[in-house]
């Protein structure tokens, strides 16, 4: 039994179903992210857990207690909002101490714990600043401290970093993870940023239209996307339509080329499937290429130098392929317009159902 159990939760606004029969079990101390595009119901789900919205159907159990009839004030969950939501009339200290103050904890104890919190979020010298005197990142640190000082059963964060700029976002997300690990606090994190979700979570739940499309470890989600939606949502991906030649042996044709997969295909021969290949799984043909690898002939269209990696856009028949190569000293940079042979292993070849929207590659 998980610490937080969502059992068949649905939420309708009028006739608009925003969360649809969603179930999830979060273990104690686990860090789970809800990842999904705008409007897929992430915030709504989080607000139902916090108690600000009531599910239309299903039940939420926290620590084996059905919280349906427990108001937000008594659920003992810490919430961090996208726009910080600090009380503007209170200093950072007062904001952090609010939860303790209102529950009648003695002043000296409150002050002591506020000091510990300020230390934890590296803001000791900012205790007497008002929110409007703090930067966005600092405000969000204070908001985090305000939520965890009361030792909540779980921490709920709704896109806490989306209003911050890139550098602070990365730093703060690492801090959030570190604090979460240090306190061992069960955490549900909402984001639409796949890199964020993959980098800090124990498990990622990819949401789509109010349902969980796939849930798994970041590695699992990235390497073994279960559906084309997940595949296209996470990272850059090459996707081609192909047709199954031999399901048993795992052979498909894409255009004029035959490709082999590592496993047999669960779709009948002759059917259309989609073949997904990560750009970093591709390389140029060289003398280290395995003899049983797949090949695709093509011409280099664009070269994008990205620092540690180089991204090539290669034209293959009427399709484009993205290929990422490490910019190592021994890497022989091909020229634009050059004819090349792109190779990849059988394992790199992911077969997904052939339905859904046509799609080539995205950046």
């Amino acid at each position, binding site marked *: 039994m998980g610490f937080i159990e969502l059992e068949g939760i649905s939420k309708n606004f009028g006739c608009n179903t925003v969360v649809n029969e969603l179930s999830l079990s979060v273990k104690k101390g686990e860090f789970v992210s809800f990842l999904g595009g705008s409007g897929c119901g992430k915030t709504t789900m989080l607000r139902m857990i916090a108690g600000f919205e009531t599910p239309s159907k299903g039940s939420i159990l926290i620590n084996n207690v059905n919280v349906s009839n427990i108001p*937000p004030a008594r659920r003992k969950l*810490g*919430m961090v909002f996208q726009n910080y*939501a600090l*009380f503007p009339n209170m200093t950072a200290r007062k904001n952090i101490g*609010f939860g303790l103050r209102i529950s009648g904890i003695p002043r000296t104890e409150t002050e002591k714990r506020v000091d510990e919190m300020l230390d934890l979020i590296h803001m000791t010298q900012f205790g007497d600043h*008002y929110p*409007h005197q703090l930067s966005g990142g600092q405000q969000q640190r204070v908001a985090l401290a305000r939520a965890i000082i*009361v030792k909540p059963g779980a921490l709920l964060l709704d896109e806490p970093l989306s209003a911050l700029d890139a550098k602070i976002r990365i730093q703060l997300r690492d801090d959030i993870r570190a604090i979460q690990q240090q306190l061992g606090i069960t955490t549900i994190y909402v984001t639409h940023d796949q890199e964020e979700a993959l980098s800090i979570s124990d498990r990622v739940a990819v949401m789509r239209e109010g349902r969980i499309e796939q849930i798994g470890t970041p590695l699992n989600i990235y390497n073994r996307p279960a559906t084309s939606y997940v595949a296209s949502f996470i990272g850059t991906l090459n996707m081609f339509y192909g047709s199954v030649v031999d399901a048993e042996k795992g052979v498909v044709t894409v255009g004029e080329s035959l490709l082999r997969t590592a496993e047999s295909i669960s779709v009948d021969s002759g059917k259309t499937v989609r073949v997904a290949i990560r750009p970093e799984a591709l390389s140029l043909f060289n003398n280290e290429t395995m003899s049983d690898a797949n090949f695709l002939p093509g011409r280099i269209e664009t070269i994008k130098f990205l620092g540690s990696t180089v991204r090539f856009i290669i034209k293959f028949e009427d399709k484009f392929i993205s290929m990422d190569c490490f910019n190592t000293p021994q890497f022989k940079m091909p020229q634009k317009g050059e004819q090349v042979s792109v190779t990849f292993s059988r394992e790199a070849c992911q077969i997904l159902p052939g339905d859904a929207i046509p799609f080539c590659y995205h950046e």
Partner: protein
Amino acid sequence: MPDISAQGRPHTTDAGHISFFRLYAHRIRRQARWLGLAPFFIFLFAFMIIPASSLIVGSFQDNTGALTFDNFIHLLKPNIVSSYLITINLSATTAVLGGLGGLLIAYAISLGGLPQGIRSFVSTFSGVASNFAGVPLAFAFISTLGRAGFITVLLRSIFGIDLYDTGFNLYSFWGLSLTYIYFQIPLMVLIIQPALDGMKKEWREASENLGASAFQYWFHVGIPVLLPSLSAAVILLFGNAFGAYATAYALTGGLINLVPILIGAQIRGNVLHDPNLGYALAFGMIIIMTASIIAYLWLQRLSSRWIK
């Protein structure tokens, strides 16, 4: 002769000439911006600075033009003191009551979750009603709540209640207050609405999430955050009532001894004609108004820091 170009004068190269003109074009443009405000400054000067100065000068003169402090000593006469007190009382009463009424309405339409249609209707109505003052307003009240007013008659003929027997009198302090409140409430709605809109719903949720009751939220967050805006708004209502002249004059015909009416009587009246005393009275009023405006601005600044 020193090298003048080194002192920031333009160089004589072609490029220098261009930047020279650019520089001036820029300056002229910058000055032109101020030019646009000229009508405002002329207006301010002609209808505020000049009258106010002549009023202040006049308040230190007797009717021959000689310097005197008599006018201010006369301000201490009981009827003048009482007129200030009544005016302050009327202004404060209607500011507080109107403020309270306006706050409740504004709260209902901004945080109470009423449909958008009602909200825009109330806003438009408030815009109109807050400007509905003076003779038309007095007339409207006389024709509804006067001795022969519509509602007075209706109550008497249908319910047998005689409003005026219950102690109500439109031409009294409370009658006048009621009339003032008619424009104070919508004015309050207009001023306090932005402040209420600035109250983030997340503050409420964050405090609830931390275990606070509704009372604790309002006590620790809601009221402290709103207080500067609230007091500023009430002060503005106070000033609004303090300066109202036409409504009071049209309704009570000078029966209630308000400062603006007294000033009117002194300056252009026939019986009480003493313009210099009128100026001193007005000077006192300017002081009260200025103090209100300063307090208002200060409180506004305080609250705008919080509510963005």
